[in-house]
């Protein structure tokens, strides 16, 4: 992979990021209600409201506010939470690892489920094995993640007591254990999405001439499946995986609420209900940044898997 490609791809993030900042700024000011009245209540005197507005910089013209917002953000300052009275950056630093851990965990579980099952379904295509795998995941896909999550919680968490029903746990092993059910719920959904695409790409690749050539070379089935078949079949699936990891990050808002996980998703929900504008703004930026980084990683991985991608 050429470094020029990586640099070009990195530079493309800058305008994207600017656009996201404009959007966030405009959206926050379009939302009905304002932070001052949310904090001070209906009965605050105009004087107090004016002073609060001044302290928060809300009395300045919008372009000035925007310029201040951009300047602060570029210096890594996402402002201060109105309700919690701490820098948004510190909240993010505390909560983001939890969300990243859960997202990675779910993605890994999803891929670990999807890849072998998709290969099995493709190799045994149109048999009962294929039917069972596809049927089960089609069914799983039709159930909303939060429903699956709640069922897992009530069965494996509450009734059997195998897993905790909330929280984050202590240490790496503790996180793995505590987050298993939410990661499984998300991973199952991801696996169901990946499985369909991956199965059909594996079937397509299996009939490719280069697989026949690999067989004529006397290579072991395992080598043919991993080096020749999976690597080609993954090319299309990697993009889909990236898109869905992006969605997982956004979906953390729901999952973290259901499972009471102290990640940025929960923080976002609390901030929205508390009209904590700086937190909402900051988190939206963080989400946007994360998603574009995931997409960047996806493109780089894609280019790594498919040497033809850079030419296009």
């Amino acid at each position, binding site marked *: 992979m050429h470094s020029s490609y990586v640099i070009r791809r990195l530079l493309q993030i800058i305008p994207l990021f600017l656009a996201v900042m404009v959007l966030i700024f405009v959206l926050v000011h379009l939302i009905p209600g304002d932070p001052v009245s949310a904090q001070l209540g209906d009965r605050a005197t105009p004087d107090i409201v004016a002073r609060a507005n001044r302290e928060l910089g809300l009395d300045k013209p919008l372009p000035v506010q925007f310029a201040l917002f951009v300047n602060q953000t570029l210096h890594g300052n996402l402002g201060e939470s109105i309700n919690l009275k701490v820098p948004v950056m510190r909240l993010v630093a505390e909560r983001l690892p939890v969300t990243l851990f859960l997202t990675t965990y779910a993605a890994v579980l999803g891929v670990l489920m999807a890849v072998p099952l998709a290969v099995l379904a493709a190799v045994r295509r149109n048999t009962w094995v294929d039917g069972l795998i596809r049927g089960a995941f089609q069914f799983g896909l039709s159930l909303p993640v939060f429903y699956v999550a709640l069922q897992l919680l009530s069965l494996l968490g509450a009734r059997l007591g195998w897993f905790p029903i909330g929280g984050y746990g202590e240490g790496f092993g503790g996180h793995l254990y505590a987050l298993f059910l939410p990661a499984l719920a998300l991973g199952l959904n991801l696996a169901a999405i990946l499985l369909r695409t991956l199965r059909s790409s594996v079937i397509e690749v299996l009939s490719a*001439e*280069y697989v*026949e*050539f690999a067989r*004529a*070379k006397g290579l072991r089935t395992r080598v043919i499946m991993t080096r020749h078949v999976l*690597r080609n079949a993954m090319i299309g699936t990697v993009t889909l995986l990236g898109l869905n990891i992006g969605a997982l990050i956004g979906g953390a808002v729901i999952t973290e609420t259901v499972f009471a996980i102290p990640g940025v998703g929960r923080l976002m929900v609390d901030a929205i209900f508390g009209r904590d504008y700086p937190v909402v703004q900051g988190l939206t930026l963080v989400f946007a940044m994360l998603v574009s980084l995931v997409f960047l990683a996806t493109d780089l991985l894609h280019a790594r898997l*498919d040497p*033809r991608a850079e030419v296009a």
Partner: protein
Amino acid sequence: MMVMGTTQTTMTSPSSPLLSVRDLNVRIPTPGGELHAVRGVSFDVAPGEVLGLVGESGSGKSVTLRALLGLHRAPIKMSGEVHYGGANLLSMPDRALRSVRGGQISMIFQEPMTALNPVLSVGEQITENLREHRNLKGKAAQDRAAELLDLTGIPSPRARLADYPHQFSGGMRQRAMIAIALASEPKLLLADEPTTALDVTIQDQILRLLLKLVGELHMSVILVTHDLGVVAQTCDRVAVMYGGRLMETAGVGELFARPKHAYTHGLLGSLPGSGSHSSNHRRPLTPIPGGPPDLRALPQGCTFAPRCTYATGECRFSEPPLVEVAPGHASACLHHDRLSVLEVSV
């Protein structure tokens, strides 16, 4: 009449054959019924011999070639015997078969663009062969891979090992595929229309390269092609296929000079070069009327009879067997001695 070189013309060569195929059958189930693509094909390949397997598309020549290595997968059914090195490849355990595939018998395909894996570098595709069959790894494998690319005439081979197939031109890709196939110095090369996808000028280069390497490495070759010109240039012996059966086998000179099957006769008559040996005037080509038979609904008797100008009632009654009609020359035509004399120069 022109008689071409007196190459090997005996059916059973003096030394024991390298590969011996007996009663090979391939059946392909399709929604419209079972397709009996290869029907009772038998032939031998002598050490160092270049055998041409000729026929129209759909005659079963490529299916035959792939069956020799047992490459067809279920639900396709293969039966018969493919003897190599004292064992029948079609009843061999997978593990043993794998060491023959690519190790003893290699194959090259028609379309290098699709037969080379797009996501693996040319070097990786050569070295995986060396690792499997020659137990070469690391630096030694890299060196050998560069040597092989050099052998197939690819300039600055060491630098090109890291290139991917899409960075090669069509002719270079075919050279790379030959390098991959020859990596383990096989005894027999199966070549499935190796020049069909190439420009005419490149075709010639690749054929010359193949012949040179065959000589240097003392390989035998089965060359599948529909191009009689290629056969005349490269082969020692020819087997003509039609409707999944062998119609005629003979030394290449003998076949072009004295075809003993109405189908071969028709094929040679449809060549642009035929009949123009000593005069400059052109004559219209004589194509064989009709199209190849539907392998799902074969006519009774000789499969070529519906298109044959020599066919009689007897031809339509039962399928004529392939029998020796002259020394080293076998034909499955009842009217092999009635065919008109052809003037062929290819």
